[in-house]
């Protein structure tokens, strides 16, 4: 087990290194100069050059790469070209929004999806099953920005129960912060729940067809007991895999929802940094996301062993 984990960590580090090279090169090729963008159309050539020098953009590519990587190793993500503050500060401010949002959405989607999946699977082939799955299909198909706008018009514009968007900061109080995350997490969580419910249902149905389920029934367990004790545990593996993928998506793939609710999250930071050619910020966030995905995948793999004792002895 320990051997397995250390091997995975080594692969993770190599992946990070490869990602750093790819990200750096890709961003170098993209046309556009942050200094020129900052100074605009009336800037003189010498002013642009002076700013490039200030930003350190006049250094050769290799030197910049190694000083960036060297910084990362000691936890220094560099300084943003546009904001001129440490990249790490920018990222931590944004994580304070994106991480709670991702976790709440994930929680919402899980507590809705698993019961719905169970319910549907246990009534396979009935009207309730097809009805529930039809609703889930609609949930998968609805674009989440449209759903988000609908939520805003009902709960913020008409009922005025919650703000239409924005994030007051955790300094304004935990409740104020949570309140502004309610609609976004519903908008993000429900479509995810729809996907997860369908996965849970089909995973359960697969398991329910196995021989050991028949054996369990034969030895006299009730349908319900079989479903909870034998089927659900075994069906959790594909569910966990999807959950892991969803978490990575929820952390930074939520730019559209962040725009609809004008939340200062990671997705918008990356988007803004790309348009302003604040490459060092883009690089920093991408590295962080790659690291997160690697870590989440590792955790998901380890959790397989938790739900399935057969996997513990292996590797």
């Amino acid at each position, binding site marked *: 087990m320990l051997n397995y984990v250390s091997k995975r960590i080594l692969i993770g580090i190599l992946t990070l290194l490869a990602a750093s090279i790819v990200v750096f090169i890709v961003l170098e090729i993209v046309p556009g100069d942050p200094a020129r963008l900052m100074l605009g159309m009336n*800037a*003189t050539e*010498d002013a642009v050059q002076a700013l490039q020098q200030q930003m350190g953009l006049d250094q050769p590519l290799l030197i910049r790469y190694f000083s960036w990587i060297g910084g990362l190793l000691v936890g220094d993500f560099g300084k943003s070209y546009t904001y001129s503050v440490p990249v790490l500060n920018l990222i931590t*401010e944004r994580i304070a929004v994106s991480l709670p949002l991702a976790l709440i959405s994930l929680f919402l989607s899980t507590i809705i999806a698993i019961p719905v999946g169970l319910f549907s699977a246990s009534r396979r082939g009935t009207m309730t099953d097809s009805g529930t799955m039809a609703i889930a299909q609609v949930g998968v198909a609805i674009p989440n920005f449209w759903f988000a706008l609908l939520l805003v018009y009902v709960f913020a514009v008409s009922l005025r129960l919650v703000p239409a968007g924005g994030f007051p*900061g955790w300094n304004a109080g935990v409740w104020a912060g949570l309140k502004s995350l309610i609609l976004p997490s519903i908008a993000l969580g429900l479509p995810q729940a729809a996907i997860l419910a369908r996965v849970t249902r089909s995973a359960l149905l697969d398991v329910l067809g196995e021989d050991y389920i028949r054996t369990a029934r034969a030895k006299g367990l009730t349908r319900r007991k079989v479903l909870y004790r034998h089927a659900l545990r075994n069906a959790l593996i594909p569910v966990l895999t999807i959950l892991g993928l969803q978490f990575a998506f929820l952390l930074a793939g939520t730019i559209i929802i962040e725009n609809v609710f004008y939340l200062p999250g990671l997705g918008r930071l990356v988007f803004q940094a790309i348009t302003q050619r604040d490459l060092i910020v883009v690089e920093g966030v991408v590295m962080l996301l790659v690291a997160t995905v690697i870590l989440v995948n590792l955790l998901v793999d380890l959790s397989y062993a938790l739900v399935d004792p057969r996997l513990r002895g292996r590797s």
Partner: protein
Amino acid sequence: MNRVWKSALAASALVLLSATASFAAKTDLVLGVVLEPPHLDPTAGAATAIGEIVYANVFEGLTRINAKGEVLPALAESWTISEDGKLYTFKLHKDVKFHDGTAFDAQDVKFSLDRARDEKSTNPQKPLFASIDTVEIVDPLTVKVTLKQPNGDFLYNMGWAAAVIVAPESADTNKEKPVGTGPFKVDNWAKGSQIVISKNPAYWGTPVALDKATFRIIPDPAAATAALLAGDVQAFPVFPSYEAVPQFQADPRFKVVIGTTEGETVLGMNNKKPPFDNLKVRQAIAHAIDRKTLIDGALFGLGTPIGSFFPPHHPAYIDLTGESAYDPALSKKLLAEAGHPDGFKTTLKLPPPVYARRGGEIIAAELREIGIEAEIIPVEWAQWLEQVFKGKDYDMTIVSHTEPNDLNIFARDNYYFNYDSPAFREVIKQIEATSDTTTRTGLYQQAQKILAADVPAAFLFQLPKTGIWDAKVEGLWENGPIPANDLTAVKWAE
């Protein structure tokens, strides 16, 4: 039972009364802005988003531009100009303090002007300071500025956001912690979310009515609409969605103001690249564009057509739209005369703003009518600046030139239009050396006519400023002579 009802009524009446009382005393305002500034130092970045937060609110210059685009005294309470127009003597206000408590005096003025024109300067508007020869301190409240040659725009130039006065102690940290002399100071900037400014109690001039103003960053047009409707923001001085305007016009809770800006929007053409080096081709393109269709389609009818590169609200403006009136038959004839009877293939590079993307599609369709196939290439701003503006690697592009007083871009060397007219350069040189209004008006009109005749670009429309705010908010600028949200006169109606 009756008694209970009566007391309940009385209580609710009291609540209502106190509610209206607190309403009357309202001294805070939440404004929506589309773009977040990269930082808050107007002397180090060109983004209009910087000026929209700090101009007149946080930072002040020697002079300032008001809502009508006129030059007013600011930190300089008065000035004299020598006979030859080269020596400006500024008398400064006394007892002015920066937000960090340090005193403002002539030294700060000299520091700011010298810093802006220094070799190592990263001021985005360095040309504004090019005419300055020396800056001398006479006494703590008097500064003498000597120019290399007379400059009729000098006082106006000193009113730009890039010419504000900063202190040596805080100049390097203004990006993050702006320290100015203005009536508001910056309290807090939650990146990606909002910027909060509050009243500066030690302000030297007329105190402002607002205690606090919050600029909330809302990039998405649908979100901007929802935020206004939900009351989360009470003013959107530059509202991003033209199509939502009628909805607000019909709603008595809001005031909708369609004002003017300095944004002359043009279809730029690469004047040195064939076939655009041929005047007839450029004329043909200009005559192929129906400005009314364009404005209706791209701006929902809210822009003003222009026939040259000059804002319609300026006193020296002349309407030259007739020079390039919509006439596709004439366009075809001109194309044939230029040797392209069947038209040609070309490209149209479009930056992100909605006026360019939507306008570009309409123009491409109109050009197709006369045989010109323009392939649309969408680009980001960074790409546009690199390829079109710096590299001149383009055929046609659409962009709005939003800086005030920028007629002279057509006289610049190596500017992206690749337009080169000695006659035009000469007129601009004369304008810069003249301060007499009547003479200047004549010269401005002459310059407009040269551009309308030479068609270095097809002149499309003046960009509107669509402001929407709570009907009880007073004092916001209706027009946008410079990018600013000047809150010095803003208050809630009683």
